[in-house]
């Protein structure tokens, strides 16, 4: 399920992020070697791809994400957004409007009381002319399905709606990539569904590159590439099928696998002839029916 933005300039892949030997640690008093948060990370992310970044708390995935839009600058190595070095101070607003970021807490990232004024915040900062802002705000609100709420008070919306407004606020900057740092962690199942559906649609229809940090394996399955981090290292990288079929390794890292995958793994382990690369409920049902018909 590649977005059409994936192939450009005659079928050649365009790189969105290129991370080379990235090292980072937070400066703290008396910090020892353990304080290294990112250790020699090299990673390329293609334009138009949908990457899920997994890892348990404190593995450095949020820190890595903050390097993608120059919120943090590498201590060692380089991070390039397209051809822009994040260390280049003149390009910082170019980078941040190219790479939009959505954070975890829906309450803490809305700046304005009125929905449409909040969405306009980004383009206003970029100095976009008023008529153009109006167009962008309307388009962004349509894209996340919140146009009817444009004059509502932002604090009265549900968590899922607030997150969609946050996504719209990012979209209004016309980004090529959206980095979402656990956008669904504080939402109820309904809100989670709304947000993921919006993210997938933006990736599919507008070819926006998506980097999704998440704890929910059901969401990671929707990506076309899964990257697993542990203690500042990249430990696994591949399609969801490849990564989740190694359920044991993930479990050793105290990570979950999607429930259908886990079920098939357990049954497989007990000698039932089931494939181990099952990802979704549908696939699981299919595999089981096939088995039962035999």
């Amino acid at each position, binding site marked *: 399920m590649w977005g059409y933005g994936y192939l450009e300039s005659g079928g050649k892949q365009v790189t969105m992020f290129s991370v080379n030997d990235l090292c980072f640690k937070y400066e703290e008093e008396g910090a020892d070697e353990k304080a290294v948060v990112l250790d020699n990370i090299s990673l390329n992310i293609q334009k138009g791809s949908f990457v899920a970044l997994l890892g348990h708390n404190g593995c450095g995935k949020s820190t890595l994400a903050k390097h993608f839009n120059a919120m943090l600058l590498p201590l060692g190595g380089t991070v390039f957004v397209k051809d822009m070095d994040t260390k280049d101070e003149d390009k910082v607003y170019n980078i*941040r409007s190219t790479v939009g*970021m959505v*954070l975890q807490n829906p*309450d*803490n990232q809305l*700046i*304005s009381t009125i929905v449409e004024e909040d969405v*306009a915040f980004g383009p206003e900062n970029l100095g976009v002319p008023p008529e153009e802002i109006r167009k962008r705000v309307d388009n962004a609100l349509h894209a996340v399905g919140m146009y009817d709420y444009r004059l509502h*008070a932002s604090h009265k919306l549900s968590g899922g709606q607030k997150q969609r407004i946050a996504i719209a*606020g990012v979209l209004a900057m016309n980004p090529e990539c959206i980095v979402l740092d656990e956008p669904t962690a504080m939402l109820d199942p309904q809100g989670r569904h709304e947000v993921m559906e919006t993210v997938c649609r933006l990736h599919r229809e507008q070819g926006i590159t998506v980097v999704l940090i998440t704890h929910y394996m059901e969401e990671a399955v929707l990506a076309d590439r899964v990257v697993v981090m542990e203690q500042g290292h990249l430990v696994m990288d591949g399609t969801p099928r490849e990564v989740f079929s190694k359920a044991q390794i993930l479990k050793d890292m105290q990570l979950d696998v999607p429930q259908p995958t886990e079920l098939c793994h357990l049954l497989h382990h007990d000698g039932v002839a089931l494939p181990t690369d099952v990802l979704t409920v549908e696939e699981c049902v299919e595999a089981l029916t096939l088995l039962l018909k035999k």
Partner: protein
Amino acid sequence: MLSDITIGQFFPGNSVLHRLDPRVKLILVFTYIVAVFIPDNWLGLALSVALLLVLIGLSRIPPKVMIKGLKPVLPLLAFTSLINIFYVKGTILAEFWIFKISLEGIYTALFIAVRILCLIAAGSLLTYTTSPTALTDALERIMSPLKVLHVPVHEIAMMMTIALRFIPTLIEETDKIMSAQKARGADMESGNLLHRVKALIPVLVPLFVSSFRRAYDLATAMECRCYHGGEGRTRLKQFHMVLADYIAVAVMLLLVVLMIMTNLFSSAVL
């Protein structure tokens, strides 16, 4: 209990008052507040009340809401009136012990009461008919000449916007923390004043801590969205003065002139 707070509450609508340029509204409300203190006679006072009543009518804000908004100032009103009744010297109407009530005192008290009511009502009419963001926006633009004097106009306006944005969020959070502390057996509704104030500490400390966390998150979110101060910033909403705005200014000027005239030609009671 905390949801009763109506600071900066806005009632969306489409009345003439809602559609006025917020800059004009802001300046006119200030003019009005000053103007209520001009008249020293019944006619002038009646004039200012009449204008206010017409405006309330035009705004289509239910009178009930207006009255509810005025309730919190009643104790203040009663206090200032009483002080005035006893303090102002003049023709003495009644006397007991050390208290003397004078006719002038009663008049002054009445004037003060009506004036305070008028200015509070005018102020709330402004917030009822203007969205908080429009208000801070207008304030920023009105104050923009002060930039020459290095007044951080944009920063002040941004702080107000954020404060208004987080009032409901923090109220919600206070309620949550209070419930959480009550669930742990905290007693906040009994005891004397000192006791109750002390009982608030376990509510305020977590509230402060979480506000700092929110502030940090918000700053990150703002930076992510390319915020870099007021420089080179454009606005979604542009303000344009239309006919209605000019008429509003003319009406207010007329009122001020009329009030000054009543002072000159009508017999003063103060």
